[in-house]
Each structure stands twice: as structure tokens, then as C-alpha cells.
């Protein structure tokens, strides 16, 4: 299952919608999408992970990079992460580093 990415602007948010599997192959695509969203000129960047069936540590590293690029946890949101994404964040003990919201 490939990764499908799209960008949605919503008020002062720029949201990356991700669908599929995030691994060593697809995380560079996610990285590009997040960096593009950071440049959209909105206050906050979000990554909607509700339809991500699988994510590995290269995905986690990409999200950490996004957090840094966007200016920190106040301006970078993980939106509705799926159960498997949440699990990887917990296993990597990074769940408390991110701002996780159910919707924007």
C-alpha cells in the first residue's frame, strides 16, 4: 500500500492529509509534504494521520523533523492519529513531545 498525500488549508491551519503506510520508502514523500505545508504561510501545520495503517521509526523521525521545522509543539499538530501510529509514538516515548488533537 503506497502513501497518498494531499494538502488542505483550513482557517489558520495548513493540514497534510496522509493515507497508507509510512516507512523508509515513503517517509521522504511525507517529509516533502510537511516542509511544503510549513511554507504555506499559515500559523499552524497539522498532519492528519487518521488513515495511516502503518508507521515505522523513519516516520517518527520525519514527524520530529516537522516539529522542528514548523517552530515547535505549539505550531505543529498531529491530527487524529490512528491506533497504530499512536502505538509507535508510545513505543518511541515521543507521544508527549507532540501536540495531538482529535480534530482542527
Amino acid at each position, binding site marked *: 500500500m503506497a502513501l497518498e498525500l494531499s494538502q488542505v488549508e483550513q482557517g489558520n491551519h495548513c493540514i497534510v492529509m496522509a493515507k497508507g503506510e509510512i516507512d*523508509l520508502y515513503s517517509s521522504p514523500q511525507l517529509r516533502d509534504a510537511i516542509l511544503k505545508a510549513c511554507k504555506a504561510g499559515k500559523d499552524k501545520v497539522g498532519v492528519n494521520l487518521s488513515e495511516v495503517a*502503518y508507521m*515505522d521509526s523513519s516516520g517518527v*523521525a520525519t514527524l520530529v523533523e516537522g516539529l522542528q521545522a514548523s517552530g515547535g509543539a505549539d505550531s505543529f499538530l498531529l491530527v487524529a492519529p490512528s491506533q497504530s501510529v499512536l502505538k509507535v509514538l508510545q*513505543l518511541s516515548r515521543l507521544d508527549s513531545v507532540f501536540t495531538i488533537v482529535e480534530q482542527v
Partner: protein
Amino acid sequence: MVASKDIEIQFRSTPKLLCDVRAVIRSYLTNHGVETDKVQEVVLAVDEACTNSIRHAYSGQDDKLVELSLGSGDGWIELELRDSGVPAPYDRIKRKTDEAIAAAALTPGGLGMHLIYSVFDDVTFTPGETQGNTILMRLRSA
């Protein structure tokens, strides 16, 4: 491997194929009665090990070979991963203490080995003398 081998997968060292490798691991574990939650964790841990072979042993060269054997027997499910790249430095792959893990928690990276050690009941990582790595990952089965 100790358990009798059922399947061996040899795949080219490209991230593009990791998804297919995960599919067969997922299927094998499910058919061996492993619960969905545990299947997810094991798939993740083995994927990290494959990713390490590609990134570290082969420095991203995509024309090398990674091998994964799946077997079961005697109350164990075994997965053995082999590459023929640069052997891992021993101090990077040994099991970390809880303190070391907590200290490293906020930096990305270094997660793979931690996952592998936490998900499996028994892990033996054998870097070759001059070449290659073998990781035997064992799970107690129901």
C-alpha cells in the same frame, strides 16, 4: 535457527520492497495464532531490523540482498534476518539499560534496537567477524 524453517524470503535491499516483506510476516504470524496487537509490534520491529540492514549494513545501496527466514516449532516462532554488509559495532546493538533508554528518549534514532529487544522474548544479534549481520528474533507462541 532452532525451529524448523517454513519460509525464506530474499529481497533486494531497497525500501520499496519493505511493504511486501511486512505483508508476508503479517500473514505468517496471524496464521500462527499471534494476536493482532502483537502482530503489529513484531512487524514493526522486523521492519526496523530490515531498515537497519539497508541503511547501516549497505549504506543505502539498493542492489544487495537481505534474507529473512520464518520458522516455528517447540513453542517458538523464529524470525532470522541476515545481511552481508558492514557488521554492526557491538556497542550500538547491545541491549540498553532503562536509564540509557530514558536519556535517549527525546532524540529520534536509536529506536530500532530498543523496539526489537522489547517486542521479542529472545534476541541474538551476531555481527560477522568481517562481514554481515545475523539477528535471530524469537517469540514464544501460544
